[in-house]
C-alpha cells in the first residue's frame, strides 16, 4: 500500500527505540559504577524514558484531540 509512509513510521519507532536503549544503558552504567546516591540520576533518566514510550508508542496525545466518530 502506502509503502513510503509505513517505512517512515517504522523508522520513527526505531529512533525511539534507540533512544530508549541509550537511556537504559546510561542507567545501567550509572547504576553499576556510581556506588551511592544515584537515585536522582535514575529518576532523571526513567522519567524521559517513560515519556518517550507514552508519547510515541502509546499516543497519549489522542486524549486531547476531539473525539472522532
Amino acid at each position, binding site marked *: *500500500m*502506502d509503502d513510503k*509512509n*509505513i517505512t517512515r*513510521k*517504522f523508522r520513527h*519507532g*526505531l529512533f*525511539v*527505540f534507540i533512544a*530508549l*536503549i541509550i537511556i*537504559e*544503558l546510561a*542507567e*545501567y552504567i*550509572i*547504576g*553499576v559504577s*556510581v*556506588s*551511592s*546516591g*544515584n*537515585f536522582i540520576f*535514575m529518576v532523571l*533518566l*526513567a522519567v524521559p*524514558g*517513560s515519556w518517550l*514510550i*507514552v508519547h*510515541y*508508542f*502509546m*499516543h*497519549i496525545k*489522542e*486524549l486531547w484531540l476531539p*473525539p*472522532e*466518530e
Partner: protein
Amino acid sequence: MSTHSETNTHIGNSLSLKRIGLWVFILSETFLFGALISTRYYLQGVERPDHLNQPLGLVISIVLLMSSLAAYRGEVAVSYNDQKKFRINIISTIILASIFLVGVGWEWYEAFQYFPPSSAFGTIFFTMTGIHAFHVLTGMIALIIIVKMGSDGRFNSNSYWGVEGVVKYWHFVDVAWVFIYPTLYLVN
C-alpha cells in the same frame, strides 16, 4: 422473554470511548505500580544486595524494550493493512515476551539462593517482579488472541481497536518496567 443483540448499537462502538476506558484503566494501574515502587523505598531505602545478576537485568530490560518496538511495528502495520508484517511483528513480540519471562524465571531461581522471599529484599523483589510478570503474562495471552483474530481477518486499516488496545497495554507494561528496573536493580 426476549433476546436482544449483544452490542448496543451506538454504545460500545465508539473508538474514543474505548480509548478513554483503557486510559482510565492504565491510570488505575499506575497507582498499583506506584504503591509497589514506594514500598521498596519504604522498606529498604535505596539499599541493594550484592548478588543481583546485573547483566541479566540489563538483557531482559532490552528484550522488553525490543518487544515494545515490535508491538509498535505491528500496530503500524495493521493500520496500513499490511497483514503479513502485522503478524510477524506481533509474533516476535510474543517471542520476546517469553524470553523476558524466561529471564525473570532464571533471576528467580538465582534469587531463591541469595535473597529468598522470607528476607526483606526478597519479599520486595519477588512481589515486584511477580506482579509485573503477571501483567506480562496477561499481555501475552491478549497478544496471542490478537494474532488469532488477525488470522481470522478481523482487523483492517479501518478497524483495529483490538490491536491498538492490546499494544497500548503492552507499552504500559513496558513503562512500568522502565521504573521497576532501576528501582530493583540499580539504585544504591
